[in-house]
């Protein structure tokens, strides 16, 4: 049932998709290659790797924590203003990173500033404007297109950033990236919603607090958050620890590099397919399939003898399952709760994803240090995959019934 208070779609579909996809490709892509600066920055400043690693951890947690509050601001004052501020902060953070010469400056720029900027320029914010401006009949597909663009940006920017460091030096490469981040500003113009003109909030049936409490008390939202936590755990554990796992098993560095490329390539297809399928079948089945499939693929991968071929097949299949949870999870939230507070609710489930990511990196390293192998961490990933598959099955995707709350209020 259409919500009578929901504003009609105001921006053309192509404009929303083109600008939203370009912003996600840029912002997700820039961030994806940050590992390439570890060696030159730590050598130039005589820092330990832990200092750089801590800055990246702060960035990921800032991204997750700030996402909730920035989502509230985006839902209240419009995505356009948030994107302008986020694009500027992203550029400033990168410039600050280029000139940081103390650990604290690195934490402040690469960690806090870039992390907050990411919260203001990535999925939760862009999905808010897509949710409000794309009809429900095409929303999941549109989210899949935007997620595929973000995945393509990650795939594209790693070799580009490597080339920039090679040709310009690490410091100038960061300044070049700051220039790229500023492209968010003109692109944000295409996502300027008339309903938010003059700083006025559109009419809504719920306040921010009411929407948040309703979601947090709703079992299906809790289940989606639990699933997204597992997504963060698995993706980041594999992304961070797989190269050293391959190295431990005597595979050449080229295998890890091609594995990275295959994950990136198939991730583009996976996110698009997931979004498109979300229009045709219940999203809980898509999510359950993704998590069960991850568990099976990991189990097969660690059971078979390791070879370049097995790594490439694993990387291609995991690539298909990589960020394919993003459009399905966000489209399910839009379907259940509506689009008025979508950025905030998207930010909330993403916080759960980031906590999972943090634990994936940390527990992976901790288990390796204490047991001398990644076996326990792989087993935990399999168990979590089965858990996430099971918890997504009972998710109720029907729009939440607020008629009781509305009649009580009158």
């Amino acid at each position, binding site marked *: 049932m259409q919500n009578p208070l929901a504003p009609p779609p105001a921006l053309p579909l192509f404009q929303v998709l083109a600008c939203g996809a370009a912003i996600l490709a840029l912002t997700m892509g820039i961030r994806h290659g940050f590992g390439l600066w570890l060696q030159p920055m730590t050598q130039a400043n005589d820092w330990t790797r832990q200092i750089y690693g801590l800055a990246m951890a702060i960035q990921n947690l800032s991204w997750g924590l700030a996402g909730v509050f920035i989502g509230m601001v985006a839902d209240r004052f419009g995505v356009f203003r948030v994107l302008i501020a986020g694009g500027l902060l992203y550029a400033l953070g990168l410039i600050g990173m280029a000139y940081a010469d103390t650990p604290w400056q690195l934490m402040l720029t690469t960690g806090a500033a870039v992390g907050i900027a990411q919260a203001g320029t990535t999925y939760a914010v862009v999905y808010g404007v897509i949710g409000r401006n794309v009809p429900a009949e095409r929303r999941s597909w549109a989210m899949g297109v935007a997620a595929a663009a973000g995945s393509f940006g990650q795939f594209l920017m790693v070799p580009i950033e490597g*080339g920039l460091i090679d040709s310009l030096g690490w410091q100038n490469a960061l300044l070049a990236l700051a220039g790229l981040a500023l492209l968010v500003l003109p692109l944000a113009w295409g996502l300027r919603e008339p309903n938010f003109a003059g700083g006025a909030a559109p009419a809504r049936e719920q306040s921010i607090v009411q929407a948040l409490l309703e979601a947090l008390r709703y079992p299906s939202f809790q289940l989606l958050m639990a699933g997204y936590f597992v997504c963060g755990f698995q993706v980041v554990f594999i992304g961070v620890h797989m190269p050293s796992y391959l190295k431990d098993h005597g595979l050449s560095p*080229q295998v890890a590099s091609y594995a990275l490329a295959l994950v990136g390539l198939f991730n583009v297809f996976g996110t698009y397919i997931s979004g498109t399928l979300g229009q045709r079948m219940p999203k809980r089945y898509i999510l359950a399939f993704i998590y069960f499939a991850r568990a099976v693929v990991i189990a097969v991968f660690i059971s078979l003898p390791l070879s370049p071929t097995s790594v490439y097949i694993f990387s291609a299949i995991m690539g298909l399952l990589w960020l394919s949870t993003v459009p399905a999870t966000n489209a399910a939230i839009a379907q259940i709760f509506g689009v008025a507070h979508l950025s905030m609710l998207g930010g909330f489930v993403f916080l759960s994803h980031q906590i999972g990511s943090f634990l994936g990196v940390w527990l992976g390293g901790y288990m390796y240090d204490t047991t001398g192998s990644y076996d326990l961490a792989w087993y935990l990933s399999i168990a979590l995959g089965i858990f996430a598959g099971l918890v997504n099955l009972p998710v109720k995707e029907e729009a939440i019934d607020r008629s009781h709350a509305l009649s009580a209020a009158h």
Partner: protein
Amino acid sequence: MDEQPSLSGQAGKSPFQRVLLVLTVTLSLGGVFYLYSNPQLVIMLTDQLWACF
């Protein structure tokens, strides 16, 4: 005016537009994959990757 509901972005496109879209996507993805297969870049990337761990 409401848009026609359709299940994918392919709906409403002429065969020529579809072929053009598929070609553009294939060339873009293939071009980026080629960047990863450049031996110098692969060596540099993997050096940096290993340095992280």
